[in-house]
């Protein structure tokens, strides 16, 4: 039979099995690759570790660690203007998170479920901000605000941040939406629920992990954003990244290490929450899978 020809004899198979266990020949360079990947991670994390380490240095030096101290953090939190910048950054990120998440989620639902004349074009327009260099979005936002006579302030920064954040939310939520079977919604409608009730009671609960993860992602992006903030900021208070920019240009000071480390901590908590969130909600999927749009990955 043809099956016998295709399949090796039992004897040949027993030879083949241990050979399979070993990594295939094409992969037989792991030692070099492992070293390379290790070095890569050193390259990736060395500057970050350094910033955090020297933020606790007791001296001004950026070369020698002269003992542990919190003086640069004190310097940071004692400065009233830096404190108001920190609060401004948090306020911007929170408002951006709420508004962009709401807008992006609705847009995702519309793009998946509605087939309108505009859907194709809107889909492209939604993706463009993701690949537009920030300086283009920043410069044009600045022009918009000045042309309509809008005073630059925290509000203009928030408007700019929401604009580049919507697309991230839409992409994440849409990937999630695509995994939800429509039959459940249809069943709710058959049982007498209105469209709004179906969305609120059936669709939305399924989307929550993605919505929350996207919201936290937006918070982190907004909190760390420099370019859009730089173009749309008013006089004061300016968000932290803009303050860092001004400070760096006057030279390297350890206070920047403290600010940077503190921002890092806030971002890490946010992203950590986003990754762990589905678990906290009692779901089995990983946050990484939700953010990358892969169910159960």
């Amino acid at each position, binding site marked *: 039979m043809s099956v016998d020809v295709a399949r090796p004899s039992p004897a040949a198979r027993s030879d083949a099995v241990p050979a399979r266990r070993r990594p295939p020949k094409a992969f037989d360079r*792991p030692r070099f690759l492992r070293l390379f990947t290790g070095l890569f991670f050193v390259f990736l994390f*060395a500057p970050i570790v350094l910033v955090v380490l020297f933020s606790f240095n007791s001296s001004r030096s950026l070369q020698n660690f002269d003992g542990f101290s919190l003086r640069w953090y004190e310097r940071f939190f004692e400065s009233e203007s830096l404190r108001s910048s920190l609060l401004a950054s948090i306020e911007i990120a929170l408002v951006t998170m709420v508004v962009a998440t709401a807008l992006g989620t609705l*847009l995702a639902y519309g793009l998946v479920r509605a087939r309108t004349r505009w859907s194709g074009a809107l889909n492209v327009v*939604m993706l463009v901000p993701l690949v537009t260099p920030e300086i283009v979005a920043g410069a044009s936002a600045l022009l918009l605000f000045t042309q309509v006579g809008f005073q630059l302030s925290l509000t203009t920064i928030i408007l700019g941040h929401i604009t580049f954040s919507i697309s991230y939310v839409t992409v994440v939520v849409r990937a999630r939406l695509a995994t939800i079977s429509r039959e459940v919604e249809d069943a709710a409608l058959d049982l007498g629920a209105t469209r709004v009730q179906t969305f609120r009671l059936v669709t939305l609960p399924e989307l929550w992990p993605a919505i929350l993860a996207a919201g936290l992602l937006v918070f982190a992006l907004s909190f760390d954003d420099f370019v859009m903030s730089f173009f749309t900021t008013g006089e004061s208070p300016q968000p932290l990244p803009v303050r860092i920019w001004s400070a760096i240009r006057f030279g*390297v000071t350890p206070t920047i290490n403290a600010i*940077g480390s503190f921002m890092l901590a806030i971002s890490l908590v946010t992203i950590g929450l986003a990754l762990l969130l589905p678990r906290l909600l009692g779901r089995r999927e990983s946050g990484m899978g939700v953010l990358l749009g892969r169910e159960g990955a």
Partner: protein
Amino acid sequence: MTEQRFAAGFLFPGGLWLLAFFLVPLGILLAISFGYTDDLGNALYGWHPENYERVFDPVFVPVLLRSIGFALATVALCVLIGYPVAYYIAVFGGRRKSALIALVVLPFFVNYLVRTYAWIAILGDDGLVNGTFDTQIRFLNTPWAVIGGLTYGYLAFMILPIYAALDRMDPALIEAGKDLYGRPWLTFRHVTFPHTFQGVLAGAVLVFLPAVGDFVSAQLLGGPDEYMVGNLIQQQFFAAENWPFGAALTTIMMLFLLVWMVLYLRSAAREAQEVTA
């Protein structure tokens, strides 16, 4: 109410927002790029195509070419560093795959300014490296410092799509290559690399676009000799107060990038259609 009309309503808030705060501003940018400034430095509308002639002034052409060169070098470096790393994680990562990819993405959430600034402390003339090894190597204010900074900043954009492509690939293909007596290098060249080339292309676009428009790396790690078009634009808006010329520079850059954006968006939109279909 039909489902269609119900769902179409969801498109309005986000759609209108993007229209008002993304598309309209791009239109204003285009309009102002033909404008002029009055004596007070205010940008006014007008018809001054000479703004665009000035973009191609011999003073500025080297800056434009340098931006493209730096961005291309960054893409090349990102492929050279990113491919092996993505390959290692995808093929040998095992149970730790997700954790390793999370580690790759993590630095992306450290403020870009702080990450770049850290390199000043490491590579500066009296920085950590020169201090530790008692050398006097000039790292900063060189083209390679700027390219290195860009590579460091955007590497994750290259690793993620390559990783995704490798992860999708059927390992049986590589075994087949091996069964056909393909030596490792031949198998890689004829099987693995072609199968993940889409990922490399996506990564190249995702790195190239922000790298061309970047001004942080050139400002902090380079100097005026390394300035890129982003620095030029930034100067027009904040120092020279010549917004129409800044807008013309931005428009030219955007037009140049449009080709790559369209290529990328077409494949991304196609992928999205497959997801939602």
